[in-house]
Every structure is written in structure tokens, then in C-alpha cells.
């Protein structure tokens, strides 16, 4: 093949960010199951990435409790990603976490040339700080507005209204994870379906006729003995 003018070509990154609630209410089985579910989902994420060579899947993890902090601050290619268990700490400062993410969604550091990022929020409780300010900061960034968002509500105490507002789309619903089995299924779905959704071209969403249909979450069986 003759040299193509224009220099090197490259696939485009999909930045996938886990936002994980690590407050005390997650202590015990919930955090253990969450760690397990994410670790088990990584091979499936790799598989989705390999099936879509035009996308380069990059992962990061942010935990929030009394403070928000990066568990993986730098984007890690999915093939190099290994899971280190997250630990519980204190409160549920979601707003701080959203604010930290909003800084990463600005351009720079986000490149102009990328596929839509994925924001996957997992929580079992009620935020204890100004989460609306954090959400506003995300919505103020172009990539934040375009991001594919998924939310997983662990147990009955999770504030579904907050998660619904995070989703920013009345046609989407937080995914309920009321048992270990449901949590595993929800994490698996968020890890794969959202990545696929991020890399599909669609007509613009501001349009009433062509408003994107939600990438439908699965219907999760609730036949687990161990219910949160």
C-alpha cells in the first residue's frame, strides 16, 4: 500500500470512569461483592474492546466516602487493567466525586478526538454533600453532557432520585441491585453495554424526532436468597 498522506492513523479512546460509593454503609458483603463483580467483569470488558478495534477502552476508578479520591487516576488500557479492591471509609461525598470527574472531562485533559466517555455510578446511600453542584460541574463540560451514564442502586436505601438526576434522561432508570446476583449482573451490563453505546453513531439527541432510545438495561432476576 502506498504511503497515505496525513500521517499516522489511530483508533479513538473511550474513557470509562467508575464512581464507587465506599461509605461505611457499604461495609461487609456489599463492598466485597462489588470488588468481586468488577474484577469478574474485566474479561468481558476486554472482550467488548477487542470486538471493537476502532475504540481504545481506557479505565479509571474514583471512590467517594468522606473524601473523593482516584483509585486509578491515570487512564489504564483495558488490557493492562487489574483490579485492586476498594475499602470503605466514612460519609457519602458524591458531590466532591462528581466535581473531580468534571475536571477530567474538560478539554484538555480530555482530547477533542475521542468517543463518548462512560460514567458508571454505583451507590447504596444518600449523598452527604452538595452533590447538585458536582453534577452541575459535569453538565457544564461538553464531554460531560455527551457522556453515556449508567447508575446502579445497591439495596433499598440507595437514593434513586439522586441517581435518576445523575442519569439526566427520564427514559433511563437506575439499575436496581438488591442482591449479590443482581449486582454482578448490573456491573457486567454497565461494563459492556455502555461501552457499546458510547461507540455508536446516532442522530443528535437535542432533536425531538431522533432522541436516542435508552440503551436498555437488562431485567434482573430477584431470586437470590441473600437480599440487601
Amino acid at each position, binding site marked *: 500500500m502506498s504511503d497515505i*498522506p496525513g500521517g499516522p492513523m489511530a483508533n479513538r479512546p473511550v474513557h470509562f470512569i467508575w464512581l464507587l460509593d465506599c461509605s461505611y454503609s457499604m461495609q461487609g458483603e456489599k463492598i466485597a461483592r462489588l470488588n468481586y463483580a468488577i474484577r469478574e467483569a474485566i474479561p468481558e470488558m476486554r472482550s467488548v474492546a477487542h470486538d471493537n478495534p476502532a475504540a481504545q477502552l481506557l479505565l479509571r476508578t474514583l471512590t467517594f466516602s468522606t473524601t473523593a479520591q482516584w483509585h486509578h487516576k491515570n487512564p489504564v488500557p483495558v488490557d493492562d487493567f487489574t483490579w485492586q479492591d476498594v475499602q470503605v471509609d466514612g460519609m457519602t461525598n458524591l458531590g466532591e466525586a462528581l466535581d473531580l470527574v468534571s475536571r477530567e472531562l474538560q478539554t484538555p485533559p480530555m482530547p*477533542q478526538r475521542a468517543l463518548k466517555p462512560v460514567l458508571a455510578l454505583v451507590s447504596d446511600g444518600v449523598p452527604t454533600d452538595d452533590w447538585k453542584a458536582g453534577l452541575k460541574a459535569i453538565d457544564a463540560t461538553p464531554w460531560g453532557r455527551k457522556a453515556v451514564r449508567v447508575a446502579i442502586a445497591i439495596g433499598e436505601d440507595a437514593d434513586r432520585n439522586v441517581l435518576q438526576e445523575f442519569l439526566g434522561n427520564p427514559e433511563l432508570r437506575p439499575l436496581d441491585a438488591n442482591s449479590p446476583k443482581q449486582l454482578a449482573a448490573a456491573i457486567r451490563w454497565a461494563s459492556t453495554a455502555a461501552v457499546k453505546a458510547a461507540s455508536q453513531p446516532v442522530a443528535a439527541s437535542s432533536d425531538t424526532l*431522533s432522541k436516542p432510545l435508552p440503551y436498555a438495561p437488562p431485567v434482573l432476576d430477584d431470586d437470590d436468597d441473600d437480599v440487601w
Partner: protein
Amino acid sequence: MNQPYPLHWETLSASARGANKQRNQDWYTAEGCGTQADPLVLAVADGHGSARHARSDVGARRAVDLFAAHAREFAAFTNVDGLGGTRSLSWLMNYARDVMPRRLVSEWQRNVLGHWQRQYELDEGSSGAVTAPPTDGQKLLLYGATLIGAVLTPRLFAAWQLGDGELTVIEHDSRVEQPLAPAEAEIGDETESLCSHEAWRLVRMHWAPIVERDRMPRLIALSTDGLSKSFAADEGFVEFMTGLDTRCSEGGLESVQTVLPEWLAKAAQYSGDDTTMAAGRRPEQDTESAHAGRQTTERQ
């Protein structure tokens, strides 16, 4: 308007299927040679391709076919010797800006809704099942596509764009222009579309009456976003276009046409998207003869 000149543009075009796509949902045409009788008509359409736009290959093809028909009709309007007599530049511009987008979009929508109805009747007839039909908006969504089209006659160069993709013009002095690029570059893969509500309002138009032959563009290239999104560097796409133009000068258009499918196939691997280009180029001889003609005139 000045007197028309005999022009003979050459065309090149190709299309490649995106990585992992079952079929190519782009469509294109590159036809004519830029004379009044045979205007240069270029168009590319990019069917959105995802499951929500399952018939976007049909939508893209209909968009290109309709544009080509409208472009030829518009080119005929620019003919001072036509049945309609001389039409002023302002009349032509108003038509191009206001009337043509509305006609194009409404005919495209009518056309694909007709296709949907025929398919529905066929499917219903074969299955025997009676299901409630979707709304027109839902039907149109199936066919969603973008469109870029251009027409060039000895008197006028005009282009239209709805949605993403690139119109690239290499001017007579080698400047590279993208006259229909949005003020702010789009991010992500969402785009305006022929299936959008009141889509004609979203059409952008480039208007360039030709006042001097030797100031005409040298290359007009239309491409779907699969090409521009394949380059690692922001400046890669413009460098591709200038490199393509240079190779046309050095090795002739045919040599570039030979390798273009390979280039687009490689781009489609990286962008993941169907990748299409349709271009017209003014031959070197034409450029040189115009230049020589001007020098001769200046010496007199």
C-alpha cells in the same frame, strides 16, 4: 457574471466499509465535468448505521440520488441561455439557501416513508401479522443519514451540508478551506441528520460565484467523517487532502484513484466508520492554460 468558460473537471471517488460493520451504509456520486451542459455534481451521504438506524443505507442512497437530481436542476437555472432566461445571482442564492434545502429534505422524507410503507406491506403480507405502525418520526429515524453535496458550473460553485463530514476546497493558490465546517468542532459521534425535525433548518450552504476562471478552486472534496476521524493528529486530515492534491499533480488523478480505495479502507479500520470520498479536480493543464492566458492578456 462573466462569460462561461469551457471546463473539464475530473472526478475520483471510493468508499470503504467500517471495521466490524456488516454493510457499508455510505453512498456517493461524482459525476459531470463542470461544463454548463454537464455540471460537476458531487455528493456523499453517511447512514448512521447503528441498530436504531437500521435502514440508513437506503436513506443515504436516496439522499445522494435526490441531491444529484436537484443539483442538475439547479445548475440548469444558472444557464443564461435556458428557457427560463437569465436568473439573477440573488435569485439563485435565495433558491439555494431557502428553497433547495426544504425541497431536498421533504422529498427525502417522503421518499423513505414510501420505502417504509412498501416494506411494511411486504412484511405484513408475508407474515400475516398485523402490528401497529410506528409514527412517521420513528420511521424516519430508521433511515437517518447525513448529506454533503456540491455543484459546480462555469459560473457558480455551491455546496450544502447537513450533519457531519467535511467539504474541503483547495483553492487556486493552494489554500485549504473547509467552508462548511461548524464554528466549533463537534465532539463525539452525534450528528444532525436528514431524519431530524425540520432538518432543512440545519442545512449549511457555501456560495461562491465564479468571477475569474483562474481563481476557481483546484480541488473540491467531500468526505464522510470516517476519514477525518481516523487521523491521530488534528492536522492529519488537512495534510491528507493537500497530499492527495500533490499526488494528483505529480502522478495524475488516475494514480490516486487506484490507491484511494486502500487509503479509505485503512481509515475505516481506525475510525470504525464507513469511509467515503467524492472529489472533483481541475486538471493541471486547465490551470496552466488559464494562467498562461492571463499572462498573455497582461502583456498586451
